[in-house]
């Protein structure tokens, strides 16, 4: 793949965040993310970062984890808001010929980038302390359709496989000189269509075999499906204070936002 899949999204540990039961953790952190997306005043950002930073510290995830995962989405946000200070707003704070930096645009860009960073870190805290399968089990227990969880599990399971297949096929192409010389567009497109088509085909054929293997082991007998079982040792006591604190913080953003709005 263009971007290596992070198979090691989850970092095992024994922090309060790791010990937090998955269902309240998922719901509290999602609430927090939505509360952050409500923030529209720059003044609130330090408080938001205080809360999010506190969570990150409590999760005891290494700083390295953040630095490793941040750049890719980071580039995207910079590309999206980078233009704002130059095109949006009235108060010019810096000017050079036709280029003018506007205060309002800069404020909006900072706000958006700040919200983005805060939500992203909250997401990292959630994903870094919860195995993906536990997350899926929690979603299932919250009423997600078994058809959808089965499909998610199978997609996740074979994703790495198919990514490896594509990588090998591209290596084989390179060893036969692919990319050596400029080729006509028609040829290049023909090859890539065939490459993508073959990848789809191999996946389809595998899916037929996988389905047969599943059926021979009783898939569809009891309507059970591929229930995601939480990883061993993850069903620990819930530190209720984490839930209360997170929800209170989320609530504080909403209240503060409301007070700012009223004033």
């Amino acid at each position, binding site marked *: 793949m*263009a*971007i290596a*899949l*992070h198979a090691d999204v989850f970092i095992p540990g024994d922090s309060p965040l790791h010990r937090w039961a998955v269902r309240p953790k998922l719901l509290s952190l*999602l609430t927090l*993310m*939505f509360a*952050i*997306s*409500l923030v*529209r005043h720059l003044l609130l950002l330090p408080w938001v970062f205080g809360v999010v930073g506190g969570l990150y510290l409590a999760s005891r995830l290494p700083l390295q984890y953040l630095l490793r*995962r*941040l750049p*890719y*989405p980071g580039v*995207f*946000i910079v590309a*999206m*808001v980078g233009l*704002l200070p130059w*095109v*949006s*707003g009235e108060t010019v704070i810096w000017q050079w010929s036709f280029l003018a930096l506007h205060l*309002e645009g800069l404020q909006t860009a900072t706000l958006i980038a700040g*919200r*983005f*960073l805060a*939500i*992203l870190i909250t*997401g*990292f805290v959630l*994903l870094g302390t919860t195995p993906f399968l536990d997350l899926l089990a929690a979603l299932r227990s919250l009423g997600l359709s078994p*058809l*959808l969880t*089965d*499909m*998610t*599990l*199978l*997609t996740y399971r*074979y*994703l790495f496989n*198919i990514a490896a297949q594509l990588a090998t096929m591209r290596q084989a192409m390179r060893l036969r000189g692919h990319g050596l010389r400029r080729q006509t567009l028609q040829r290049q*497109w023909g090859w890539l*269509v*065939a490459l993508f*088509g073959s*990848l*789809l*085909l*191999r*996946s*389809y054929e595998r*899916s*037929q075999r996988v*389905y047969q293997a*599943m059926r021979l082991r009783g*898939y*569809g007998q009891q309507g059970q*499906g591929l229930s995601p079982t939480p990883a061993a040792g993850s069903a620990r006591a819930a530190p209720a204070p984490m839930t209360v604190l997170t929800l209170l913080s989320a609530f504080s953003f909403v209240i503060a936002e409301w007070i700012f709005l009223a004033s």
Partner: protein
Amino acid sequence: MHIPDGILPAPVCVAGYAIAGGVTWLALKRINQTVDPQAEVPKAALLAAAFFVGSSISLPVPPASVHLVLNGLLGALLGWYAWLAILIGLLLQAILLGHGGLTTLGVDAVMMGVPALIAARVFQLRHRLGKPLSPKRSLAVFSFLAGAIGVGLAALIFFTLIIFTLPSTLDRSAEQGFLTALMVAHIPLIFLEGVFTTLLCFFLLRIKPELLES
């Protein structure tokens, strides 16, 4: 194509989740009405994974290269399952790559998935509207339309959301003009997406025609 966290105002995110929830309910209802819904699950799951992986292939378009979105093709091959595939693809993308967002998951799913479902309908129309044409020509026309409509609608939703929710000093009419300009600028991309979808459908027609008959 996706909108990251933090850009959209919270009500839009919530509305995105609400619509996505509704479509998911509808898709599951339709899928459960089919003869053997579980039989299609592995196929949809593995093709979703293949799409997710395959979208990393960049196509040369001198002087640059583009990554295709392929939601129209996904719709054409998977029908209602395309919605689930997109939902799962976006979730995995957010988790494994930090690409996209958790608060904007609903919005992103609507942006990619609803056009995919429309493309699926369009692709199915070839059985009825395509009759006057030869089978190959009808496949060419409707696969092109499916590919073009999938990405075209997604781009329209994307730019509309960005332009009308980002605060700026532009007035409404200027924003609309800007939107039109952006869409016009994307016509070549929409065209390429249609061409790729057609070429791929012909590849599958030759090698595995049953994949086109979902």
